[in-house]
């Protein structure tokens, strides 16, 4: 990510939104935890956090900070975790880089009671305009890669993601959109508005169990 918006205390706003969804003292798995910023933030809130990270540098940095992080791949390694191992499984800004987003989401809902997913919204007006008027693949501050070298292979819009949630039987407990300045869009708005003006989205999901 380029210059991401930061909130009070210097934490990334999207991470603060994610962290606010996590209950105190919960057991959390952060899939694609990067350098461990979210895990550290959660640790200050009494959360028992674990992480998975693909890049070796990220992992080693996290472990050297005392975080419980393993080197692994969201696409292949979630299958090793038992059912209900965590209260929350978090996928922060990583969904679009997985090979099988649907399978990953299904595993998250299997491993955790809740899943939290944050992702860049490909339905944002700026991205639509770049394709419509510029005729090229969109690039933004948050998505700076050229099409031929981007790790992001499965973009979706908020609308697309909502459809995936229906497809995998996830209940949407909470959804938050962040605007281009990283601010939370608090007003109650229809989906089409969020899909057009939200640059990022954060969803809190849970399994639609038989008792739910």
């Amino acid at each position, binding site marked *: 990510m380029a210059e991401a918006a930061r909130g009070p205390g210097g934490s990334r706003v999207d991470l603060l939104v994610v962290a606010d969804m996590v209950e105190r003292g919960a057991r959390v798995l952060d899939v694609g935890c990067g350098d461990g910023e979210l895990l550290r933030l959660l640790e200050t809130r009494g959360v*028992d956090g*674990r992480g998975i990270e693909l890049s*070796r540098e990220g*992992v*080693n940095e*996290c*472990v*050297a*900070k*005392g*975080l*419980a*992080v*393993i*080197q*692994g791949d969201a696409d292949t390694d979630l299958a*090793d*975790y*038992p059912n209900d*191992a965590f209260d929350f499984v978090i996928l922060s800004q990583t969904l679009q880089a997985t090979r099988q987003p649907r399978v990953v989401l299904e595993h998250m809902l299997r491993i955790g009671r809740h899943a939290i997913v944050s992702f860049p919204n490909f339905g944002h007006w700026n991205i639509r305009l770049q394709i419509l008027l510029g005729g090229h693949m969109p690039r933004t501050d948050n998505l700076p890669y050229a099409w031929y070298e981007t790790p992001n292979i499965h973009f979706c819009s908020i609308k697309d993601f909502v459809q995936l949630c229906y497809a995998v039987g996830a209940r949407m407990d909470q959804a938050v959109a962040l605007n281009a300045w990283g601010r939370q869009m608090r007003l109650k708005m229809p989906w089409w508005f969020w899909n057009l003006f939200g640059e990022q989205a954060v969803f809190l999901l849970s399994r639609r169990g038989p008792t739910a």
Partner: protein
Amino acid sequence: MADANSIVDLADRRREADQPHSLVVRFSPNNPLQLDAGVDFAPLQIAYQTYGALNAERSNAVLVCHALTGDQHVVNEHPVTGKPGWWETMVGPGRPIDTERYFVICPNVVGGCMGSSGPASTNPASGLPWGLDFPVVTVRDMVRAQAMLLDHLGIESLFAVAGGSMGGMQVLQWAASYPQRVFAALPIAASTRHSAQNIAFHEVGRQAVMADPEWRGGRYFAEGTNPRRGLAVARMGAHITYLSDAALHRKFGRRFQDRDNPTFSFDADFQVESYLRYQGITFVERFDANSYLYLTRAMDYFDLSADYDGAVANAFRGAPTRFCVISFTSDWLFPTSESRAIVHALNAAGARVSFAEITTDKGHDAFLLDEPELFAIVRGFLEGAAKARGLPAVKA
């Protein structure tokens, strides 16, 4: 060396096995070590070293487990070779396993030859070294003996257990056998079971020892011989497995040793040959051939899953221990896939685990060498664990 010298070597070896330059605890014959082989072994002797100080709460003890050819002399001059300890980069004041903060204990394993009961120790019944009459021991036996030592020292629970290779096997066995006694576990370059390839390498080493006519069916002490050639060949073969193709190439390439052209003979023309011969010769000065047989055997038998209904995860189910598993990219003896299998089992058991793979071309031996990333990870992991355990930080 002349034969007279090798007899002196053997006398020294026996003295080190019975009266080591170390702390020693001799358990009474009524307090035997129960072995997996079905034998109650007594009297048991354990030689060990300690570094740092045990705190009043007895909560800062770190058990260091040594590898196949290591011993208890972690950070002091070796009494036989005069060389520095084998893990001075990792253990000591200000090191990742900081002896200003932790009380470090390292026992010689059962079956070893530096003062813990082993085939070079004197069998009280005969007055001669046990030789092959010593019962076959396992990694679990080593860990049981270490638990007896801790009981003797009055240490109920360990802050951490750390070790590489065979030491890492002991770490895993500790967490499986005594989960309530291990707060943090650091298995480095280890595996939950010895692979077929590794058993094969060990078998070549054992056959080299046993093919030496001076081995005499393991009774070389009594017969005044010394199977140094066989043991040296075993060491040379094993040493290759501890390195990597890239490391050998970087260190030696095809360079000649003290000459510009090949001699058209079987001299050590190449530097790599000379290096291996040196490794073999120096090893036999400090190690017992029968011990080599016993300890390689113990590693071969190691298979945690076999003890837990075929699933390693069962060994760690409900374990309160926090783990940090570390592997090295160029280690082909205990490759990263083996460490990953440990991690999968720990995840399946719901244990708290970190896992890092360190990029290096130094092969399996990297855990003993200067690897700054390894030190940073061990330091960070232990600091996180110390905070969770409520151990005070070192005074600045």
